């Protein structure tokens, strides 16, 4: 992959990229002796380093990783490289990013034997991707400003999505746009599933009255809240925790009936080390790896036998909305359009 060809072309995989592209389908299987694995990781640097270390300990295989800043970037790379794939594994980011890749035939179908131990909603019905962690949406609250400005008015810390409709948040709440941010769409769909079509839209419309503006990315609001530009915002809980750990006066609140994303992983079709890739997926689903990741990234593991992340409520206590992924992706275009019209009509 990027890493391998960068190392001076010594690696066998990169020695014959031309041959590989001429007949990608007929690419010969890499010899089982391969002790390498190329991973495109849309995750934290520290996290992937730990995974690299532990995988080596457990299997003796060297991971060559490329850290990417987001799953969009990873999937774009895989699309751009389809003529001669450089990666074996793509990992991290919401499963929604994996579906189109699978449809384009860029992913290898693989269902790990370990997937049986996991709730079926975390496994791709089509078999392209494998869920291995879970992130939930949460509220970020700037405690400083909240205490100074809202508490004196008798406002309580928000516990539910509905609490955000309090007019005291007017112009002080920030969230992201479903048309541009994956998380924002999940949030919107969450409301529709939670309250039903009509009331759901009603909620979004009312919330719109409080929203200062919709950021392009799901995480953009966190910094703005952390530095005190806004009092509250909506984003991924684990990202909020990351910022909070830096020392900002913010806290994360996971409200009832929140929605979640499934952290994906998949085998890239035609990658240089296909066998090792499968081994990696199997390994990823084991309990120790789940525990390690939870500790590092503040995300829930898909395994029920793994403790929740520190500072967050137990997964049993998280009241997840009944989120229908198939329906969500079906109605997406329509919802985004309606949403765009709604905020445009302001």
């Amino acid at each position, binding site marked *: 992959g990027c890493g391998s060809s960068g190392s001076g072309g010594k690696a066998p995989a990169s020695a014959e990229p031309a041959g590989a592209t001429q007949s990608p389908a007929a690419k010969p299987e890499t010899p089982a002796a391969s002790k390498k694995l190329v991973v495109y990781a849309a995750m934290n640097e520290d996290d992937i380093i730990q995974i690299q270390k532990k995988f080596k300990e457990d299997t003796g295989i060297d991971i060559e990783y490329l850290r990417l800043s987001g799953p*969009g970037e990873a999937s774009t790379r895989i699309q751009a490289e389809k003529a001669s794939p450089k990666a074996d594994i793509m990992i991290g980011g919401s499963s929604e990013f994996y579906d189109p890749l699978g449809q384009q035939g860029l992913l290898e179908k693989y269902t790990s034997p370990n997937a049986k131990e996991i709730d079926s909603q975390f496994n791709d019905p089509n078999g392209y991707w494998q869920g291995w962690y879970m992130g939930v949406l949460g509220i970020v609250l700037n405690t400083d400003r909240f205490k100074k400005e809202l508490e004196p008015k008798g406002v309580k810390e928000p516990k539910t999505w509905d609490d955000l409709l309090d007019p005291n948040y007017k112009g002080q709440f920030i969230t992201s746009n479903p048309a541009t941010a994956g998380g924002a769409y999940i949030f919107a769909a969450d409301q529709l599933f939670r309250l039903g079509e009509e009331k759901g839209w009603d909620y979004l419309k009312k919330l719109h009255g409080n929203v200062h503006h919709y950021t392009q990315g799901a995480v953009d609001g966190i910094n703005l809240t952390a*530095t005190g530009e806004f009092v509250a915002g909506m984003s991924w809980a684990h990202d909020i925790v990351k910022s909070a750990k830096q020392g900002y006066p913010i806290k994360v609140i996971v409200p009832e009936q929140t929605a979640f994303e499934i952290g994906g992983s998949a085998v890239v079709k035609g990658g240089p080390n296909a066998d090792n890739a499968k081994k990696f997926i199997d390994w990823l689903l084991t309990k120790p790896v789940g525990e390690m990741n939870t500790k590092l990234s503040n995300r829930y593991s898909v395994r029920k036998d793994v403790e929740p992340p520190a500072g967050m409520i137990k997964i049993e206590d998280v009241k997840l909305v009944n989120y229908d992924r198939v329906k969500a992706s079906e109605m997406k275009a329509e919802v985004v359009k309606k949403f765009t019209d709604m905020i445009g009509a302001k």
Partner: protein
Amino acid sequence: MISSLSEAWEDLKRIKNEPALAVVLAAAAIVTLYFVIWPVLKVVSLPRLSDYWTLFTNSRWTDAFLHSMFMTAISTLSCTAIAFAFAYALTRLNVPLKGLFRFVTILPIVSPPFIVALSYILLFGRQGIVTKQILHLNTDIYGWHGLWLVQTITFFPYAFTVLYGVMRTGSVSLEYAAYNLGASRWQVFKDIVLPLSKPGLAGGALIAAMNVLADFGNPIIIAGNYTLLPTEAYMQMSGLYNLPMAAALSTALLVPALCLFMLNRYWVGRRSYVTVTGKETSLPHYPVPLYVKWGLFSFCLLVSLFVLTVYGVLFYGAFTKVWGYDWSFTLKNMYYVFDKRREMINSINYAVASALAASLLSLPLAYAVQRKRIGVNRILDFIALLPGAVPGVFLGLGFAMAFNEPPLAFTGTSAIMIVALMFWNLPVCYSSNLAGLQQIGTSLEEASYNLGAGSFGTFRHILLPLLRGPFLSGMVMSFLRSVTCLSVIIFLYSAKTSVGTISILGLVQNGAWGSASALTGALIIIAFAILGAAFLTLKRRGHSMEL
């Protein structure tokens, strides 16, 4: 028409006499064509027709298109105006602090991703240190007006560079002629100075406009609900995994860029504004009234303070415990700087290499377009500017797609990083060298031929030394913007070729803003230190370094 054809024929005949020159010019042209057109085509051909169709039907995107046009228009105006003020003050007025003003016209070229935009918010946001704490204003920076401000400050240096070059050589005696006929200062400005600065204004505006048009780093944070084409395109890709739609959106950007280019060439091309006659007069600039002089000075000072504050916050943030919240002093962020040594070194290496390569390539291109009429000038001219019109992300993406397969596959190497940055910088170097060449009379070249030097000798001994100014200023600009470039390389870096900005991005995503600004600060300081060292060594070797 016929005469130009016959001249072209004559030039071809002459080039035939010098096969080496022909080879170099052809090679430069072909390399440029290949590395610009091929990646762009890759991006353009990605979307399906239906994707393109939605550009017209989706109101969000028609809005974004209109917004982009509007933002480009007003930012170009303000960029050019500020650039003009600075160029006027620096070339015409006898005011103090010229060194500072000159510095301020370079500083914003180093525009590290995210951090600058967030510095703006910290200073001028709703809770901004300046706006709220000092001035007690209830302003709201988010939206088109805030973005306008930020884009103006970020991109006026590009317009400045072009304008400065032109205004420095403006003819004073024409102004005196107008005064002599009874024109007041304002009338002289309106009737003479302004119209004669037209090529500079047009060139500067073009460069600024293309940059504003293609930028997404600032809008993504500052624009609020204001949608723009590049941000839409970027979000389609990174947030919504719709690569074809993203490509379609960025292709839509090419249309206005092409229009801008043609408008510019048409506007400037028709009339002659040559004021450099070779006969220099010793007239000093006509004294401007004190209120104009000090008014302009104050204006420049204000802009300077503004820029310095923004960058000051950035630097200061590097030494604070929690960036933007807890301002107490700490050195802990410096740890990351040492930790990311390799990335920083990569950043500098690639920036140096690509700036050098871009300026070197731009020379034969500018030479071919300006001096040799070989038939394809117009096309070459446009192609050399084209990379400036596509958002960096898409240039990078184009590279990732185009050079991952035969005939040329070198993704993942340092080479692709350098080549991509090089072509991204090409328009900057090219326009600078082109303007420079236009000012050198052909008789100098002829004198050199006449004394027995071939095209190469003439180029080396005469043109190159005379082009030093534009050449260096193009190179410096390229270097500075490469050091802090993220967009172009985001799809191109590999584990071993990761650069400083990628680490900054990682830190930002972790919310570690303090460390991110420490890294940014260090990068900027190293970049300027290298520049300073280069200038000093050149100076010691007896070359004047007039930029």
